[in-house]
Each structure stands twice: as C-alpha cells, then as structure tokens.
C-alpha cells in the first residue's frame, strides 16, 4: 500500500427523487483510496452500490450526486462534461458488474464487446485489437480464447461470463477497478476461482480496487481495508486483518451472524439494528 492518494471522496451524498419523496441512498460518505484494495460491505440498500456508481457518475437519471470533494488524481469528478467523463470511464476507472447474464449485450459477440472497450481508448487497427482481446481472454484463464472470442454471451457459463467481464473491463488498463458484487450471481464453487483471477490481475497490474459486497468474509480475505456501511452511512472503517477487533455494534453483529465450523452449534443471533446508527 502506497501513500499516494488516487481517489478522494468527502461527504458524498446521493439522493433519488421518487414519487414517494426523496430517498437518501448515500449520506455523507468520505474516504481516501491509495493503490490498495478497499472493501465496502453492507446489506442491501445500505448505499454501497450507489457509492460505486457515483464515483463513475452513473447514478440513474432521477438521482442527484453532491460531494464536498470527489477527485481522482487531479480530475474533479464532481464537475465533468459528458465528453470528459468518457475519457475517465473505462480508461482510468472501470467497473465490473454483477451478473454477466444481464450485463453483457446479448446480440454482440464477446470478442466485439471486448474490442470495443479497448479501441475506445487505444487507437489500434482491428487486427491488433483482436490480438489484444484474445491475450486478455487468455489472461483471465479462459482455455479456448479463440472460441469464446467468437461466442455470444448466452453460449458461455456464468463463471466464464464473469471472466469475460473482467477481461473487458481490465483491457484498457484502468487505474481503479470498482467490482460491484462480482461473484454474487455465481455458483459458490466458481466464486473463489473468479475472485482469485481478479485478485491476481489487480495485483500484477498495480491497480486499485474497490470491492463492493455483502460478504464480509470474502471482502476481508481479498482487501486491505474495509468500510462498513449502514443506511447510507459509513459506520466503521477498519483494516481487514483487524476485523475481529471491530468496535461498532453493527460490524460485530454482522460477524456474529457467520456460522462457525467448529464447536458452537447454537442458533445464530439475529442482527440487531439501532436507529441511532443511521444518524452518525
């Protein structure tokens, strides 16, 4: 972990305007990110995914992003024109989506979709781009890259689809990868394989990673630092290795909910929530 700050977020708020009134999805989230792997955990609706999307400026049309500061290197993410955004997205910050079944275009071949991501940011000819894409498919440990290159998304399995997604998002060589529940849609047996591939590539290429998940165990084993979110707030920020020393009752509650393999077979406690945590 280096001290150089890549991303600095101060007091980020995401508010959605709905017919039932305003919904505050993210309320005052602040963090700094170096070349490290940061985990954001929380249950559904805690605002973890919306935090990730706000960093890429991809909040839905009825949402509003405000922040005291949101900078990536020297780029002010809070005030970008659509044209400037296109230079950041993909090329410098990228995001791995949740479910390859829905997040890949069903009528384009996998190869075309990967090449598109590469050529958007690198001026190369079609042959070179194809070469690159096949190398990248090889890098995510796809055994038969040529065949997958020419396949359509529905012709590959979920685990394979997610490797394709990783290849597609890493090929322009961004500095920061946001992985939004990258393994939640996969079989348990494939989850770890995919995570290991992502982890290797992120390390090799010296990228920073924001790993968004509801799986505290998974996050703590792949990240350096963990943010725990509850109802739009960061309730605790802690080193992954020191998770067992967590102070906040919510984090402790989450940890207690995990079943233990040895000894204790009593009922798992129910997660308790206090209204005061959401005011923080």
């Amino acid at each position, binding site marked *: 972990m280096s001290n150089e700050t890549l991303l600095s977020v101060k007091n980020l708020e995401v508010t959605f305007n709905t017919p039932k009134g305003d919904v505050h999805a993210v309320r005052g989230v602040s963090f700094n990110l170096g070349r490290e792997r940061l985990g954001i955990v929380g249950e559904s609706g805690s605002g973890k995914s919306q935090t990730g999307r706000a960093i*890429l400026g*991809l909040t839905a049309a009825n949402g509003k992003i405000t922040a005291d500061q949101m900078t990536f290197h020297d780029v002010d993410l809070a005030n970008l024109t*659509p044209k400037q*955004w*296109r*230079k*950041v*997205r*993909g*090329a410098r910050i*990228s*995001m791995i*989506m*949740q*479910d390859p079944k*829905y*997040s*890949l*275009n*069903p*009528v*384009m*071949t996998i190869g075309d979709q990967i090449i*598109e*991501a590469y050529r*958007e*940011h690198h001026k190369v000819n079609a042959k070179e781009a194809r070469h690159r894409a096949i190398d990248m498919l090889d890098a995510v440990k796809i055994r038969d890259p040529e065949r997958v290159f020419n396949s*359509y998304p*529905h*012709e590959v399995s979920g685990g394979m689809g997610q490797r394709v*997604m990783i290849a*597609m*998002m890493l090929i*322009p060589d961004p500095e920061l990868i946001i992985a939004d529940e990258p393994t939640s849609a996969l079989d348990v047996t494939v989850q770890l394989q995919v995570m290991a591939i992502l982890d290797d590539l992120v390390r090799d290429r010296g990228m920073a990673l924001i790993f968004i998940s509801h799986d505290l165990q998974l996050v703590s084993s792949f990240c350096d630092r963990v943010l725990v979110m509850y109802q739009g707030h960061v309730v605790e920020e802690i080193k992954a290795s020191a998770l067992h020393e967590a102070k906040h009752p919510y984090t402790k509650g989450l940890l207690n909910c995990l079943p233990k393999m040895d000894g204790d077979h009593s009922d798992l406690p129910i997660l308790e929530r206090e209204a005061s945590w959401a005011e923080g």
Partner: protein
Amino acid sequence: MSAVKRKKRDGRNRARFASGPTGTFLRLVFSLAITFFGLLLVTFLIGRVLPIDPVLAAVGDHASQSTYNRVREEMGLNLPLWQQFFIYVSNVLQGDFGQSVLTSNSVLYDIKRVFPATLELATIATIIGVALGIPAGVFAAINKGKWPDHVVRVIGLAGHSMPIFWLGLMGLLVFYMKLDWVAGPGRLDSFYVDFIEPTTGLMLVDTLIEGDIDLFWNAVSHIVLPASILAYFSLAYIARMTRSFMLEQLSQEYILTARVKGISEHRIIWRHALGNVMVPLVTVIALSYANLLEGSVLTEIVFAWPGLGLYITNSLLNADMNAVLGGTIVVGAVFISVNMLSDVLYRLLDPRARR
C-alpha cells in the same frame, strides 16, 4: 463398439441433424407445408358452405334439370367432398384457380396483373415507414417526456386518427391539384400506359428494364403520394413500438456496462440498444408489411391503383367466387411467407434464437 454406445452416438447425431442448418430448413419447409394445407382447407370449405351455387351461376336460372345435372357432373360437384378437395388442391398447386366471371380471364392471370401493383406500393410504403419510423421512435425514447417525444406522439396519433381516404383526397388536392408536385391517380400518366411491357409487373423495375428514365420518373411521381400516405400509418405504429422497445432496452444492465466502458451515447443507442430493439421490431415491421400487402382498398380506390385490394373487393361485390378464393389464397400465402421471412430475420438478429 457396444450396441449401447452406438445407440447413444446415433441419438447424438440425430440431435445434431435436427438442430443444424439443414434441420432448421426442413422444419421450416414442413411447417410451411402444414400451414399452407390448412389455408387451402379453409378456403375450400368457405367456397363450399357459401350459399352460392356455382352450377346455377354457370347455366343460369332457366336451364333444364338434365343440363343442370350434366354441368354439375362436369364441374365434379357430384363427387364426395374429400375427392373434390383433392382435385381443388392439385389444381391450386398447378396454379389453376379457375376462371373469373367478372373479367373472363383466368384468376391466375388477373392476380399476376394486380398483385405486383400492390407489392410495389406496399414495399415502398414500408421502406418509407421504416426509414422514418425507427429514427422517430428512437428520438422520442431518448427524449422521453420532453417536447420531441410529444411531437412524435401527436404526429403519430394524427396519422392513426385521420381516415385514409380523406387523407388521400387531401393529398391529391394539395400536392397534385394545387402544387403540382406529384402526378395524379394511376400508376403512370395515361398517355404512357401502353408503352410498358409488364415483365415483372413492378412499374419502377419495368421502366428501368426498358431503360426509359422519363417513364421511371413518371412512375415514381405516381407512387410517391399513395406510398407516403400508407407509410404514414405504418410509420405511426413503428415509431410507437420502437419508442417502447427502446425505453425497455435502455434500462437494461448491458447499457450501463457500455457506459462504464466510456462508449459514446450515439454508439450506445444505435449499436447496443437498437441491436436489441430490432429483434422484436422485426415482427412488428413484418406484420405491418403483410397488412399492406393484403391491399389497402381505400387507398387503391382513391388513387385508381389497380391492386389486389381493389380486385378482391370488386370480385366480392360481384359474387365472383373463384376470384375471391384465389385472392384469399394469395393473401394467405403472402402472410405465411412474410411470417417466414420475419422468422429468418429474427434468427439472424438474435443469436439466442439460432439453435
């Protein structure tokens, strides 16, 4: 090799055969044949249950009973129904739909004359409808709730609400009578009509085959107005459907993926979203095309367009049974083939449907 293994392999081969391109083709032909058979059966039965006595129509009211019986036998109407149907099917398959009482030509000859006129009109109308309707729908979808959306909706609604014959008459009044931008009713100026040899029956093609550019532009000038008026209707429908399909696709996850990649909004809409919109849209376009191919009677009357709709209507009003049934078979066959065509296009556009 053991018997079990061989059996297994045979099964796999059969599965591959049924799912390969040959299998798809065979299944297509098979379902085409079944549908066409059903069509013939229904038209045959309609022809038999209608209270029109074909014998009486041929011999007249005053013929003697013996003449009546002889003609009845000659027409094969004394045979059992299944045998009559068999004869009917074999006649139709040989292209024999019988004589038209009204025109005293063979029905096939008449249809060969009128169908190309309708085909030409419907094709040009569909091309205009698609070329304007899809961009209009996309434009409305990406500006949902803003003024371009309202404009497209109002124009579309107006297209659907105005009676087509009125629109046709107004079009003639304004663009032919007052402005003189286009030619009037008919497919060519009456002066030219006999100049052209009906090779394909499509005026735009025939004039080009003869290499007569003046005649070609004359034909264009005649078809523009009726085609545009028909196109207005299919345009309104196509734009409406495009808009709703587009809105649905733009909310999908893969659009967000494309945005993450930093792709231009233009490419996201026209390549990613529209590529998926085209899949259901092909069916919509095909159905609207098939509807136009049936012949739009009102437009054909207003523009004195000698098409299929006009022919079937006239035959119907004159109890010309053979012509009506022949026309019905043609319309049915057109529907079947347009459906087949949309099926094929569907497979081309959606890789998930290629099995």
